[in-house]
């Protein structure tokens, strides 16, 4: 069921994008009509769909352990899922929520980092010197060992 669905969407997807980079979907052969669409960015070298589901779910769940890069990996790795949105209905919610999670996290982190960097001492006062990394490294002697 899913194979034929992916093939139908592959046919629909193949026409506007003839023979893209083999990094993405493997449709180098346009003669055969049943070229499979791969869910991962690696194409035929990547995962199959069932494994992709397991990986996407695992990456999504572990991203909550303060690992937003896993969400970014999720988004990047399964990007064909978003491109051919009809062909992988089970994968799509994980990839979309990973993308949303990563963007939310990056907004939060970058706003904090930029506030810290730009604000500097006149915003934070003396705590800026306590928080900035090179002072912390000096205090803890992290770079003095070599």
């Amino acid at each position, binding site marked *: 069921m899913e194979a034929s669905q992916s093939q139908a969407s592959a046919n629909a997807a193949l026409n506007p994008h003839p023979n893209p980079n083999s990094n993405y979907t493997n449709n180098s052969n346009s003669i055969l009509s049943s070229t499979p669409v791969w869910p991962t960015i690696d194409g035929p*070298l*990547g*995962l199959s769909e069932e*494994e992709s589901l397991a990986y996407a779910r695992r990456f999504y769940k572990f991203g909550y352990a303060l690992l937003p*890069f896993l969400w970014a990996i999720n988004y990047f790795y399964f990007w064909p899922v978003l491109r051919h949105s009809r062909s992988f209905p089970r994968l799509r919610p994980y990839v979309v929520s990973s993308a949303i999670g990563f963007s939310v996290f990056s907004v939060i*982190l970058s706003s904090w*980092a930029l506030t810290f960097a730009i604000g500097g001492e006149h915003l934070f006062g003396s705590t800026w010197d306590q*928080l900035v990394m*090179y002072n912390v490294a000096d205090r803890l002697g992290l770079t003095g060992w070599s």
Partner: protein
Amino acid sequence: MAQNQRPKSLLDSLGEEIIRILTPVSICMLLVVLLVSILNSSSSLYVTSSIATIAYSETGSDSSWDKFIGALLNSLVFVAVVTVATFILVLFFYLKCSKFLKIYMGFSSFVVLGFMGGEIALFLIEEFSVPVDCITFLVLLFNFAVIGVLAVFMSKMPIIVTQGYLVLIGMLVAYWFTLLPEWTTWVLLVAMALYDLAAVLLPVGPLRLLVELAMSRDEDIPALVYEARPVTHHDSASRPVQTRIWRERQNARLDSEDSSSLNSDLNSTVSIVQSSHNGARIARVEEGQVSQRDAELSAPLIDHRMDAQDGMSTESLMLEGMGLGSSGAIKLGLGDFIFYSVLVGRAAMYDFMTVYACYLAIVAGLGITLMLLALYQKALPALPVSIALGVLFYFLTRFLLEVFIVQCSLNLLMF
């Protein structure tokens, strides 16, 4: 419509294959040269004590002969430790303690990526006075390390991510090696090249034993290996492309793919003379697809990897050597990346002229090794030829070419 299709020979795709293995080596070397030139602008007065300087600590005032003898002793100690470590790895592999090795390897590479990467990041932050606060830094470093560990041998990741992390690990360890004193570095390089030659080609060599064990059991060798993407042949599109799960061998074995590698844990702060933790990080990035090259490369070729002891209180065993994967993609052990980059990094400490000369020498050596690989179709040590050419060209450039070029430039004759 009939098209005459020439059967693709090995030569047609060899150029692409060579490029795909040369690019990451070049990137690793470039990164190490950049790091060395940024961070070592002050003369390296620090003598880092480590396992590689245990026999003799080079000071600036010793005579040349003393330095040479001291460097020789250091290198012998290092090579001895590496040999012992490799034999321990072979023993573990023989006793099938893959789980233990894998966990140890995971822990060690987390420590390497986290601590070594953190150290170098701190050096860069101090150099450029980047106003980053510790919370952001810790979060980013933690993410970086965890993703690195997952990418390198625990889970499937995008190929580019895994390859990138392997190059980064090579760069980090190579940078630490360049902090060794100068004579020790050069003698160590030569010693490791000789060791690699012996360990891979002699029948009693530990790497050869490891390779034969792996072949007889049809398992993967525990090692950190960089595998290039296989070259796709576009005229093979009519053949069904076999799906390959990331990191799965063609005979569909998932167990020992990322199996053990001993990894030395990186203790960056204290206790220089640690007991040898030897770890060979093994990441077998195996990708491939069924292509007509399988007919030519039917025998699974194994990589020889060498365990290289990290001089700085962390000993990481990394296997090096070259081979062809069962899919026909070229594999290069991470130790090769590291020692090439150490050579070029050490050349960068002198001048950029030596960097160019050594880079060309190493690339030429790598090309020769690839030709030999295609010729002999067995695992070969990748260090000896490149290191020999690199060291030769370094000394030739430093002592002969530089004088010539400088005089020509000063007299406005050439260059």
